[in-house]
């Protein structure tokens, strides 16, 4: 029996819209732990384009590739708890920009480190979460290991729903302690052994403003302290502290025709190194029948350069860096995500293209010859035990 009528008759339209104003139809959601165990595997490939020959001083122009395999397990435990375990293995290979120098024709060119980097990274993350009537709270521990780097991080987060269930307040604090021990050999390094600490706090509020729309706001602060210089770059000396702030907002609206949702997110970032950035994300979540979802997405990013950035670093100043990641640029990425469910299985596939260019940015600065473009692909398979 089709119980979803074509709501055309004016009497039915009037009755339905008047009924839906009642609280029982406002989608008030108490937090509940996951009901079923979920198991997932994901393979991703990240491939940076080679740096264009005109922008390098001979040598290799090949850049970074990363192959990653992920394993995910989420299970309910007892009545009100869940536990999640995520393991990720990454295999990284290729070259990264070593330094930028002035070429005879006047333009800055990059010198690559040569195809010298070969590293693997293993990350294990464990989260346990407690669900209560009006929200949930979680503890997350992450350990990451590489040949030249290890990191331990702990995070606490919580969410609290208002009595009408329409507003959710959330907050999180995290701390991470990282040790750096650069691999010696191919290029001289800026340190033999160093460490850094990162502390971060986040608060957010989201509100369901109608049956089909949700809006959210968030603020965060991050403090980094320790060895923040890139150990492998020749011309790199950064301050020992960094204070970062972000403000973000997002809006999601569902449209019953064509059965899809528009999501728009914006984030502003500012720090005391002089880098500020804007990120705008747009995505469209299109439902195709009951079991397929197609999500095209578009992201625009722009940042200003750090106070101590210069393509050709002045080594006499207190701080300097020629790292393209601290230069002014704009970037656009576009991609497509597909999710399809078959019984207890779900398949996801993602493809994304990222390109960056100094002239696309809102901020002026020296164009770094090392700006990058990349492709990213990912394929995943999830199973729900139910």
């Amino acid at each position: 029996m089709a119980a979803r009528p074509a709501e055309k008759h004016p009497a039915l339209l009037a009755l339905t819209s008047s009924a839906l104003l009642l609280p029982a139809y406002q989608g008030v959601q108490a937090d509940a732990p996951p009901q079923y165990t979920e198991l997932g595997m994901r393979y991703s490939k990240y491939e940076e384009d080679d740096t264009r020959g005109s922008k390098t001083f001979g040598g290799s122009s090949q850049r970074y590739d990363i192959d990653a395999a992920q394993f995910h397990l989420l299970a309910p435990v007892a009545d009100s708890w869940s536990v999640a375990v995520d393991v990720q293995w990454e295999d990284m290979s290729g070259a990264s920009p070593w330094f930028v120098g002035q070429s005879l024709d006047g333009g800055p060119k990059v010198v690559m480190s040569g195809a010298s980097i070969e590293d693997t990274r293993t990350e294990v993350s464990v989260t346990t979460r407690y669900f209560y009537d009006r929200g949930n709270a979680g503890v997350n521990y992450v350990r990451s290991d590489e040949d030249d780097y290890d990191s331990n991080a702990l995070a606490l987060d919580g969410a609290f729903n208002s009595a009408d269930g329409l507003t959710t307040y959330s907050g999180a604090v995290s701390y991470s302690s990282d040790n750096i021990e650069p691999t010696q050999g191919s290029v001289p390094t800026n340190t033999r052994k160093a460490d850094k600490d990162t502390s971060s706090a986040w608060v957010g509020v989201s509100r369901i403003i109608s049956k089909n729309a949700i809006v959210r706001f968030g603020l965060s602060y991050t403090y980094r302290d320790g060895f923040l210089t890139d150990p492998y770059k020749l011309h790199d000396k950064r301050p020992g502290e960094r204070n970062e702030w972000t403000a973000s907002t997002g809006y999601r609206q569902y449209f019953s025709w064509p059965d899809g949702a528009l999501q728009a997110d914006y984030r502003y970032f500012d720090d005391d190194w002089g880098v500020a950035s804007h990120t705008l994300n747009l995505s469209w979540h299109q439902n195709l029948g009951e079991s397929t979802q197609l999500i095209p997405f578009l992201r625009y990013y722009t940042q200003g350069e750090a106070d101590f950035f210069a393509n050709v670093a002045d080594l006499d100043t207190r701080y300097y860096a020629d790292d393209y990641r601290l230069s002014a640029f704009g970037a656009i990425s576009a991609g497509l995500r597909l999710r399809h469910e078959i019984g207890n299985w779900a398949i996801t596939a993602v493809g994304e293209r990222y390109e960056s260019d100094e002239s696309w940015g809102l901020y002026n600065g020296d164009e770094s010859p090392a700006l990058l473009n990349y492709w990213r692909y990912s394929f995943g398979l999830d199973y729900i035990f139910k």
Partner: protein
Amino acid sequence: MAALHFDHRFRAMGGPCRLRFDCSDDARAARAIAACEAEVGRLEQKYSRYLPDSLTSRINRAAGTRTPVAVDEETAGLLGFADTLWQQSGGLFDLTAGILRRAWDFKSRRLPAPEAIEALLPLIGWDRVEWDTGAVHLPRPGMEIDFGGCVKEYATDSAAAVLARHGIDRGLVDLAGDMAVVGAGSVAQPWSVGIRHPRDKDRAIAHTSLAAGGLASSGDYERCLVVDGRRYGHILNPVTGWPVQGLAAVSIIAGQCLVAGGSATIAMLKPEAEALAWLRELGLPWLAVDASLQSHGSISLD
């Protein structure tokens, strides 16, 4: 984890109630059942016209005084829904019409005196009620409102929402014949439900499949009054104060049990031919039983 099937029966709102659902966890199912019963009990206590402390009783006691009674968002929502029913039925559904029960005593087997009905008519009229989203005021002493025409249907939907909030994604709430499917429902796994016989409370006149949304029935289930060969049913026209020569029972399936119930009530208040025409136009699956126990409608019977 295998899903366990729960079937819980209890009494509320003057009738037998039943919760059927799948859940993988005993403790969560127990909490869901308790929360569901509590929700139905909350609505019964809040809106019952028999309980002196209920909001309905407070509103009725303040009739004719100068003081409006403050109402919360939920009550304002029910008043708004009742207002829509009044408009869509051309004044046939009237939250203030319950007072006619004082004149009509169906057990006595006698017709009321026309003067007794005349005397009550000035106390009836939804258009005389002053209300907004914050307060309601019955202007004349003796006026009464009665949410009986929509609270049980609303409670059915609300109980289904409570189950969904406890993580239950397949279930059926049945409050004495008003039903709501928990969650989004499934065309592949519909619920087989019985539609009550208009002349026999304990018997189903038909069975149908309910995949999603809600089903509600409205009927003239009691034995009617027959005087001089003429049948007088329990469904009263608020304008004349006399019984409607209408259908014996109507069941409707809609996105919400509340919308199904409101639509069924409107159909019951219309004269038979008008009611059948209105049901055909409305576009919802329906089943109507006329006074001669003939059934009509688009609900496919299992």
